[in-house]
């Protein structure tokens, strides 16, 4: 009975997804998964049964690290994954029902859903990247996310936590899990971790070390991202030549290499596979627009924007700053004031997106010369008139720019 219900639910979901694609409403992932889950609430559990998974979660770097880990694990066999950023249970269900055969999988999971997905999927590994403020209109408190992760990771049957020990919130979430693997993947954004998540006291930092009076402190890392290298538990360093920019991606590569190590993939093979990846669903994409080179950078929250601003090359390129505040972005763009836009002084900026007026006001106070252009394509044309362009956009504004550049 239950398997008949699952089969029916799967068929209905796949039909709905097909209709959605045919009618041009979307790629059908969400609607298909939603229908399958509505008809069989255990559909994700059933779709995952008997398979072997790694989950990837965290505020920033989910899609990139998932892509890295898929590349690494693909060196030993086929891998199913939820490409396209559909990282809620509906999207996961759709991805797994679409490919019921492949044994090994890598799934990125929206942070608050990690506990329920762990219960449903029973993964071998959970890759825990970082936690920082994001979409505060929905999640209210970052520490609360760490707390529900912590509860989910303490069970004896919990997955192997591959956890970033440079992030105190992630460390606290994973430190009582049965067999954590610690990765020094870096943390540039410290502003959500000046208070100890365990005791509420002051968290003291000393170089890369951090500690609290209650005894919580940075564990000794098994893996480290250091400069342009990833150093494994055997102490051997591997130079990393990623096509993707930024130190943050060396950290993501270290996380993925550590996770792939659980499947005994050698670090060198993992890192070689990751090096070739040059864009992740449009992120970091280099293309041309109006005859000028353009690069797209996605940044969704203060930590991500701070990283992205450091990736803007020192040579003179105009910058488009595109910000929306839809549900998927977070409705409150106050976070713009947590981002050091002062780094853009001396360049020309174009403010756009549905909240371009918030951007304009922030740039005014940052002392950055800017113009405001409502239309995203017009904004990019305006910037491209002056030479190469870096586009920095938050989530839904970024989707708009992927269409703008592909339409030419």
């Amino acid at each position, binding site marked *: 009975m239950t398997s008949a219900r699952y089969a029916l639910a799967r068929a209905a979901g796949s039909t709905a997804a097909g209709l959605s694609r045919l009618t041009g409403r979307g790629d059908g992932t969400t609607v298909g998964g939603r229908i399958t889950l509505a008809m069989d609430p255990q559909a994700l559990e059933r779709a995952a049964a008997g398979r072997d998974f790694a989950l990837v979660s965290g505020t920033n770097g989910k899609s990139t690290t998932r892509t890295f880990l898929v590349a690494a694990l693909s060196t030993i066999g086929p891998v199913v994954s939820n490409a396209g950023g559909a990282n809620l249970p509906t999207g996961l269900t759709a991805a797994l029902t679409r490919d019921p055969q492949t044994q090994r999988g890598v799934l990125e999971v929206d942070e608050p859903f990690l506990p329920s997905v762990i219960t449903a999927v029973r993964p071998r590994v959970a890759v825990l990247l970082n936690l920082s403020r994001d979409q505060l209109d929905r999640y209210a408190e970052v520490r609360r996310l760490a707390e529900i992760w912590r509860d989910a990771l303490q069970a004896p049957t919990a997955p192997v936590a591959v956890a970033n020990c440079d992030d105190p919130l992630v460390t606290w979430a994973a430190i009582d899990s049965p067999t954590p693997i610690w990765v020094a993947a870096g943390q540039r954004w410290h*502003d959500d971790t*000046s*208070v100890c998540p365990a005791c509420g006291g002051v968290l003291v930092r000393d170089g890369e070390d951090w500690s609290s009076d209650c005894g919580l402190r940075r564990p000794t890392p098994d893996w480290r991202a250091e400069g342009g290298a990833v150093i494994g538990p055997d102490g051997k360093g591997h130079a990393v030549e990623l096509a993707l920019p930024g130190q943050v991606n060396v950290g993501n590569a270290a996380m993925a290499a550590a996770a792939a190590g659980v499947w005994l993939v050698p670090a060198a093979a993992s890192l070689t596979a990751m090096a070739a990846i040059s864009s992740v669903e449009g992120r970091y994409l280099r293309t041309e627009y109006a005859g000028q080179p353009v690069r797209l950078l996605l940044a969704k929250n203060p930590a991500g924007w701070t990283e992205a601003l450091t990736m803007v090359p020192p040579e003179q390129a105009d910058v488009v700053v595109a910000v929306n505040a839809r*549900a998927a972005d977070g409705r409150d763009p*106050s976070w713009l004031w947590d981002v050091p836009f002062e780094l853009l002084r001396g360049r020309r900026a174009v403010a756009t997106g549905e909240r371009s007026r918030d951007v304009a*006001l922030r740039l005014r106070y940052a002392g950055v010369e800017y113009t405001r252009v409502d239309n995203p394509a017009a904004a990019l044309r305006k910037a491209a008139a002056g030479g190469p362009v870096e586009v920095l956009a938050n989530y839904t504004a970024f989707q708009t720019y992927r269409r703008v550049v592909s339409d030419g």
Partner: protein
Amino acid sequence: MASRGDPVRIALIYPAVLGTYGDGGNALVLTERLRWRGIDAETVAVEIDQPLPAQADLYVLGGGEDSAQTLAVSRLSDGALKAAAERGAPVFAVCAGFQILGESFLEGTGAVHAGLGLIDCTTDRLEGPRAVGELLTNSTIGVGALTGYENHGGRTNLGPSAEPLGVVRDGVGNGTLGVDGAVQGSLVATYLHGPALARNPTLADHLLGMVVGTLAPVDDAEADELRQERFAAVQTARRTGRWRWRRQWRPPARSGPPTS
């Protein structure tokens, strides 16, 4: 007061702890608005392990998480902020910063925690869901409409010594008597993020005026445009009746909801 020797010092209190919602921007706004007028000014960020400067001209506190709020109030109980308020230095506080200036607030666990007692108010919990959304008020201190974004579970009751900062036109605010914030002597408090002083330059200048006297006008084209946009957004949302519609993820139940 036009020829001050020293720069005007804006003390930003514990930005890493009370700065979750971009409220650090308030200090930047105050400092820059003085500089635009040729008045020397600087922001002094005071971290949680540092003593509060006794002689700053203006003090700014922002919002934060429950545990941060409790830690901040324990450090501020040394009397330095009280002394500043008593000598008439303006203090501007937002959200959690507002709550800790009161007589008491609730910890994350639901326990009552003593505040600094600088504003005659107490904070408990809103009965309904957390207040999340645009907040629009009419100020009671003659600085016009105040616009921003609120995100809190606290309900603040003003006592007889405190006046509200604004009368709520849209949103929740204090959650009692249809008002937002508090004004008591040189202390001004609100639930408005945005940051409040970026979206409401007249309120920023009101605070600065308490320090340097009459201010020359400045060009506020960006803020004016943004304000018009937000006023229109509140109106549209009200007309379409979707204002309280929210896809809000809620954490699994625990001993009590967050207060700040």
